[in-house]
């Protein structure tokens, strides 16, 4: 008999599974090796479920047509991610306005095979006006006013985690991002990039710690969340992120030189994740200790 099939692929193969126009959900810690590969490949017209500066990079790199958005803060005192803000104000991207409870309801409706889930958060607000996919309706049992949230169905969900075995049994350190498991359950296909591949026996030592069972594909990318954090491995590289934010802010004000240089240096010139890490330098990576 044949033996059990490995789920391990590399980041190039993983992103080959994404096509222009697809819906891609991006969890946290941010799977940056995969995000950079999307930019490297120059994918277009994506609908993305993402937040913060990784969302900003995808928009700035021209990959995005629509954002399922509940929060697009810039960090570092910048209230709104610059490329997101500019593209939204100019009408260059469509925003599917929502909030966390509506987003999880939509993802859960998709995961549960339901045409909608009801939600109360957002009743009375402008959300159903600015997002006509959210229908105000009267519940069939008590006659209360609720929102009907339609399914949100990612074609592909991209996540970052601490470890996995070769068969896609994923375990996090310090918990997955709050929305990661919703995204995984709702998606047709889930790719998880991990710091480390471990033996199946290591997984079995604590099956309760398995946060995702049988992810479709595993990509081994140590330091793969850089410049973001990876719990248990390294903290956020704030200097790097601040450089990006400054470049994105300047681009939104009409000076795109620094942003072009950023993408060239970190996304387009490196051919693989290992090339990217060489670009960052091991001294800097090792400086991002946990405490």
């Amino acid at each position, binding site marked *: 008999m044949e033996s059990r099939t490995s789920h391990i692929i590399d980041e190039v193969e993983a992103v080959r599974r994404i096509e222009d126009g697809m819906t891609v959900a991006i969890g946290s810690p941010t799977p940056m090796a995969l995000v950079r590969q999307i930019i490297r490949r120059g994918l277009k017209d994506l609908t993305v479920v993402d937040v913060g500066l990784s969302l900003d990079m995808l928009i700035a790199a021209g990959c995005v047509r629509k954002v399922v958005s509940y929060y697009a803060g810039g960090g570092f005192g910048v209230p709104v991610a610059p490329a997101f803000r500019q593209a939204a104000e100019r009408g260059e991207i469509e925003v599917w306005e929502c909030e966390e409870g509506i987003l999880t309801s939509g993802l859960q409706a998709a995961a549960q095979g339901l045409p909608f889930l009801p939600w109360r958060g957002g009743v009375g607000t402008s959300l159903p006006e600015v997002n006509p996919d959210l229908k105000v309706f009267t519940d069939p049992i008590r006659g209360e006013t609720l929102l009907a949230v339609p399914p949100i169905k990612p074609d592909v969900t991209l996540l970052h985690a601490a470890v996995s075995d070769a068969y896609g049994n994923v375990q996090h350190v310090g*918990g997955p991002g*709050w929305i990661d498991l919703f995204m995984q359950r709702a998606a047709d296909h889930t790719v998880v990039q991990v710091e480390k591949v471990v033996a199946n026996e290591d997984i079995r030592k604590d099956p309760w710690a398995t946060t995702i069972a049988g992810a479709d594909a595993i990509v081994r990318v140590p330091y793969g969340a850089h410049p973001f954090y990876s719990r248990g491995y390294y903290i956020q590289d704030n200097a790097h992120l601040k450089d990006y934010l400054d470049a994105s802010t300047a681009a939104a004000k009409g000076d795109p030189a620094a942003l072009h240089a950023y993408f060239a240096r970190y996304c387009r010139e490196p051919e693989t994740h290992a090339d990217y890490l060489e670009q960052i330098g091991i001294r800097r990576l090792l400086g991002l200790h946990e405490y």
Partner: protein
Amino acid sequence: MPSDVSAQDLSPQEIMAAFLARDLKDTEHLMVGVAMPIVEAAVRLAHLLHGPNMELIFFGTRMNVADRHTLPLPAFAWDNRVVRWAESFSDTGHRFEDVKHWHKRIFFIGGVQVDPHGNTNLIGVGPDYATLRFRGPGSVGTPTLSTHVGRYYIVLNSHSPRILVERCDYMSTYGWGSGGADARKKLGLPGGGPKYCVTPLCVMDFDEEDKHMRLHSVHPGVTPEAVQAQTGFALRMPDQVPTTPIPTPEELHVLRTRVDPEGRLRRM
């Protein structure tokens, strides 16, 4: 411990934090969002002074740290350092699966715009949603939180007529709607709604009957007229406007030595 505190020694942010801290009750669950240092200080101060059974919820982790001798405000990166005191994760895929128990939960909200009935806007500013003049960051979880939590506080880093407006261009949370003590009940929103709006100039509450924003107290050195001049709508003005109580020596001692030893609240 300073034996005698005078208002001149205090930053408005310290006054805000102490005011909020006193209003928080033991056993409550206090949820603090991103980039809210005043709120974080308030919650930690209350926890140390009178909240041994408070639960602090930061970024998906739930903790009780009342027995820590010092509680420096961490530079919250989204990394493992925020979970070092965790007793559990609030976000194991169940973030919104226990709203039934949110009567114990308190939260704090800012806003791009806030109107006289405590409705807030994080969506953006401008008449046309497709091409906003200012695109805001988005609602985060505030529509759901404001619907269900026991009560919440609107906490603003600045007090200006640009923020405190007659009417929000978009409402991302429903506070008291177009007013009236039964506004939330009529819509079926179970939570207690916004209690105070706290700014660097003053504290505002809501009229019991029509839930219109009303001056509750002014911080030392601020006049009611100065507050009105910086507010984009007519505030309800009681006959007597008291001064916001300043921290006691004990409160200030804990605030400055255990909660904010680096003085972030004095440099905002």
